[in-house]
């Protein structure tokens, strides 16, 4: 005999014993959910305090109204803009520019990025050129764009498109290049053609980078929209900003900035919503 197995009685109550542990875990989960809801509100504490302080400082006359109007006054200005319809007229004009420019730039970024990502020949042909163009600070194009297109709609859209193009392009290329070759190999085992490989493996695998590019591109679009409108415009939030400066109305400036922030957040939230819908499969770190 070189060894011996000793049988042990296994108590048969393990399922019951687990019950309190499960219950405790459920309680912990509810608590943490409650806390995460509360922490969304926690984020509001500082802005509310700041606005209250701002209101107080203005009311007590520390800042003169022609320099810094009180939040309540800015809200009043917004209400006026709402009543006259100007708020919507200018917001829509800006939003339209952002969307058109973003669609052109982002669309081109997607197409060119895919071409460069998928084909080494394309990469060698145009990547160097694009990197060179990319190293020009985007605002440097402004005089040239004005010279070429005048100061109407075209140079604005061109500038916004350039701003949107590069983030989308760069992220698409790195996304496609980052696709796990092991997954591509699975596709080859199933005899997928080039097009099917692209649609069923490369695109879904590159989608997270693509969305990163989209969101950065969208932020850039808003940025360059404001700049293009400051260059000269007869409508849009940038026009409101210029007007506010010219007639020395800081309330108008602040109201316009507030609307810009809201619209930027809104469009970003929209992209994020689509992203979360499509990319729910990703493992994410929740802190």
């Amino acid at each position, binding site marked *: 005999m070189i060894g011996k197995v000793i049988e042990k009685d296994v108590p048969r109550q393990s399922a019951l014993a687990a019950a309190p542990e499960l219950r405790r875990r459920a309680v912990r989960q509810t608590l943490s959910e409650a806390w995460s809801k509360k922490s969304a509100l926690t984020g509001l504490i500082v802005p509310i305090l700041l606005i209250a302080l701002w209101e107080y400082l203005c009311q007590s006359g520390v800042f003169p109204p022609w320099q810094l109007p009180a939040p309540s006054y800015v809200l009043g200005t917004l209400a006026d803009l709402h009543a006259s319809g100007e708020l919507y007229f200018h917001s829509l004009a800006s939003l339209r520019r952002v969307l058109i420019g973003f669609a052109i730039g982002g669309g081109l970024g997607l197409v060119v990025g895919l071409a460069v990502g998928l084909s080494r020949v394309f990469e060698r042909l145009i990547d160097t050129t694009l990197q060179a163009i990319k190293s020009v600070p985007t605002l440097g194009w402004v005089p040239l764009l004005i010279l070429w297109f005048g100061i109407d709609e075209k140079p604005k859209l061109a500038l916004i498109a350039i701003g949107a193009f590069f983030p989308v392009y760069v992220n698409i290329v790195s996304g496609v290049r980052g696709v796990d070759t*092991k*997954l591509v*190999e*699975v596709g*080859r*085992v*199933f*005899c997928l053609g080039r097009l099917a490989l692209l649609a*069923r*493996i490369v695109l*879904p*695998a590159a*989608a997270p980078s693509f969305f990163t590019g989209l969101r950065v591109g969208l932020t850039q679009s808003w940025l360059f929209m404001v700049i293009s409108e400051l260059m000269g415009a007869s409508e849009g939030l940038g026009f409101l900003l210029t007007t506010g400066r010219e007639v020395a109305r800081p309330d108008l400036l602040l109201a316009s900035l507030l609307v810009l922030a809201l619209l930027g957040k809104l469009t970003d939230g929209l992209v994020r919503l689509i992203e979360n819908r499509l*990319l729910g*499969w*990703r*493992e994410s770190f929740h802190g």
Partner: protein
Amino acid sequence: MVELELRDVTKVYDDGEALSRINLQVHTGEIVSLLGPSGCGKSTLLRIIAGLDREYTGSVLLNGQAITGPTPEVGVVFQEPRLFPWLNVGRNIGFGLKKPDSARVAALAKEVGLEGYLKSLPRQLSGGMAQRCAIARALVTQPRVLLMDEPFSALDAFTRMRLQEVTLNVWRQVGATVVLVTHDVDEALYLSDRIVIITERPGKVKAEVRVDLPRPRERGLAVMHQLKVEIMERLQFGTGPKP
């Protein structure tokens, strides 16, 4: 009947021969293991059979026809599950189908013990479950030959044994020919009809061991132990004097 035949398959890398004149015949319905130390080129050999590697000389014949690339007749299970993270288990299993066939997907999922997990995402699966899913995915096109490249080497011992059972189970159900690459002698002995021992660089067929034991086999049977000792000696891990 010979299902798969390798004739003088030789693969040369820049730094020398990786595989040297491999000749092998696999019969329909057989389970053949390619056993050898890491780096002996057994995985390369499997990739050649799968049609993923075409830089070799010699020929690979499937039912007498030369293999020139991946074919639906040959399914592959890799060392890692390689599931598509954006597809749920059901869609991963059905990936190779031309048109959706939920009945077939459900049947395969049941066969590998994933019937309750069709809607789960790969990240929610354990390593063993992910590999089960990969096996089902490889079988969805009803391949005649199933190639498995060290499919259980990343799993713990218990999960590995359970998946070996799963493999035997599906093998019985679908009747495919299986070529398994492994470096686990016990695994080879438990699963195979024949074990092909491959030497280290360049990979050559050193010996073939026939395992004529009825299935299901009992693990750790005395006969198997005897075979294991002989295999170990061929692999130069024997206790006897080294040549």
